[in-house]
């Protein structure tokens, strides 16, 4: 043990104080300094002066009794190891105070130098570790608070950014389209067919970019959104998604097969977006089919509920499957199938937010099936990434 431990012995009975003092000297070979206080007020004063390594505390003092004594000393000592000195029969109280942070207790009349020494050594070590832990926790807490504040600021910035993008990128598009249209109208019949074609291209360009901005914003919004889990009937969600599909100008026959769907724990709004994207994709990529067939169902695969949307459309080569879910990634030329390449990225983001997985199976001209799972009964509230 270190040569000079400074002990504050709080004990009003001179006899007991002397016995303890003797035991301490025996243990340390005289290298420990013992200050004695015989009442609480004195002990608190001494603690205030500092330099104490460990406290030996009798709970029964002239000016304070029992747990109150401990509480007062603990408050003042902030982290100092405290060993209680109790009379026989006070074990109950001692144990209770150990729960509140006392390191150990010794019983008067049974004081043994070896025992006391070991108890003190452990008490000091334990207290050091506890203090270190507390310090680390406080640092950690501060860092969490700092980091949270930074994240909140970043989120706010992102929100402002998204808002600005939505406004400021759209405004010039409106102007381009508006004024191009007005030029065309003013020119009337004097505009040759090629120039009219150019004007049409300007219009199409603006509309595409408008769609792109909308989709990007949507993707960003889905990313930010907090998942609100709730018991959800997927049948209803699929029906709503179907109702929300854009009507196609050219009438063609689509045979829908809607299998029975389970009731699951998910965010209904986000799940609607998933189905709207998958269903509108199925409709889009079956366009060349005279008889389109789209199937929405659920099946149990190895104990997991797997939901799927299957079509008999143009499909894709499986070697591109890993590219399907990347933002802006398209597997079809724009003149074959329109699109911005953000829909499936959005779908994947939502599925991941639900702790699920998504994958696809297909081959060129063999149709495509998109499978996904939703976190198996695991509750994942407030997932924001």
């Amino acid at each position: 043990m270190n040569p000079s431990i400074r002990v504050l012995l709080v004990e009003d009975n001179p006899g007991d104080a002397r016995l303890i003092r003797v035991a301490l000297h025996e243990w340390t070979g005289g290298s420990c300094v013992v200050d004695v206080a015989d009442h609480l007020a004195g002990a608190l004063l001494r603690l205030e002066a500092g330099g104490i390594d460990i406290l030996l505390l009798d709970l029964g003092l002239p000016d304070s009794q029992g747990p109150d004594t401990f509480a007062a000393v603990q408050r003042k000592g902030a982290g100092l190891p405290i060993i209680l000195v109790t009379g026989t029969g006070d074990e109950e109280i001692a144990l209770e105070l150990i729960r509140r942070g006392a390191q150990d207790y010794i019983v008067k009349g049974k004081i043994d130098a070896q025992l006391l020494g070991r108890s003190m050594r452990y008490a000091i070590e334990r207290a050091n570790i506890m203090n270190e832990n507390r310090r680390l926790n406080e640092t950690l807490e501060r860092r969490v608070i700092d980091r949270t504040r930074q994240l909140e600021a970043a989120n706010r910035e992102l929100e402002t950014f998204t808002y600005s993008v939505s406004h400021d990128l759209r405004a010039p598009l409106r102007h381009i389209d508006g004024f191009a249209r007005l030029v065309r109208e003013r020119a009337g019949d004097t505009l040759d067919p090629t120039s009219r074609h150019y004007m049409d291209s300007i219009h199409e360009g603006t509309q595409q970019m408008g769609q792109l901005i909308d989709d990007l914003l949507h993707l960003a919004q889905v990313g930010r959104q907090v998942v609100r889990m709730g018991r959800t009937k997927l049948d209803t969600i699929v029906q709503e998604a179907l109702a929300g599909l854009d009507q196609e100008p050219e009438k063609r026959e689509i045979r829908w097969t809607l299998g029975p769907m389970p009731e699951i724990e998910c965010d209904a709004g986000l799940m609607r977006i998933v189905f709207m994207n998958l269903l509108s994709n199925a409709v889009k990529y079956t366009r060349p089919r005279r008889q389109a067939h789209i199937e929405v169902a659920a099946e149990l695969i190895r104990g997991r509920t797997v939901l799927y949307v299957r079509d008999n459309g143009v499909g894709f080569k499986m070697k591109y499957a890993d590219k399907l879910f990347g933002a802006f990634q398209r597997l079809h030329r724009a003149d074959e199938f329109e699109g911005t390449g953000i829909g499936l990225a959005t779908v994947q983001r939502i599925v991941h937010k639900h702790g699920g997985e998504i994958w696809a199976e297909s081959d060129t001209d063999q149709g495509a099936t998109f499978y996904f799972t939703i976190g198996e009964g695991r509750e994942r509230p407030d997932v924001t990434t």
Partner: protein
Amino acid sequence: MSVGLVDVLIAEDNTADAELVQVALEQNDRSFRFHLVRDGEEALDFLLSRGWYSERRYQDAPRLILLDIRLPKINGLEVLRVLRHDPRTRLLPVVLLTSSTLEEGVALGYHPGANSYIQKPTDFQLFRQIVHHLARYWLEFNEPPPLGGRVMDSW
């Protein structure tokens, strides 16, 4: 139906947008007198007869206010809030115009008391149709609120 000029206030800092709104409105068979204000402060000065517009009688209120949400100095929502708290302007028809498709914006727009909330589409043809219907509704079908504050006194 009144004959003569119909006053419309366009609060819009972007001249191109203001011009397109005017062009779109002019397709209606009415003769308009457009008042253009370029920021929120000017919009309030105009409507509440303050500052530069202190000579204006607030009784000559426009029949319709097209208010862009994103205005410099005082934004459209703030302008609207002030208008709704002032008995002289509380009943003026205000149509909020926005570029945004963000849904939270819609709720924010109606909260301070917009009469209508229009998202300007990028397709000018569509925008013209919207403005056409808007103008017909607010300037022809809709009976304008009595102005001059007399109605307010009885409240």
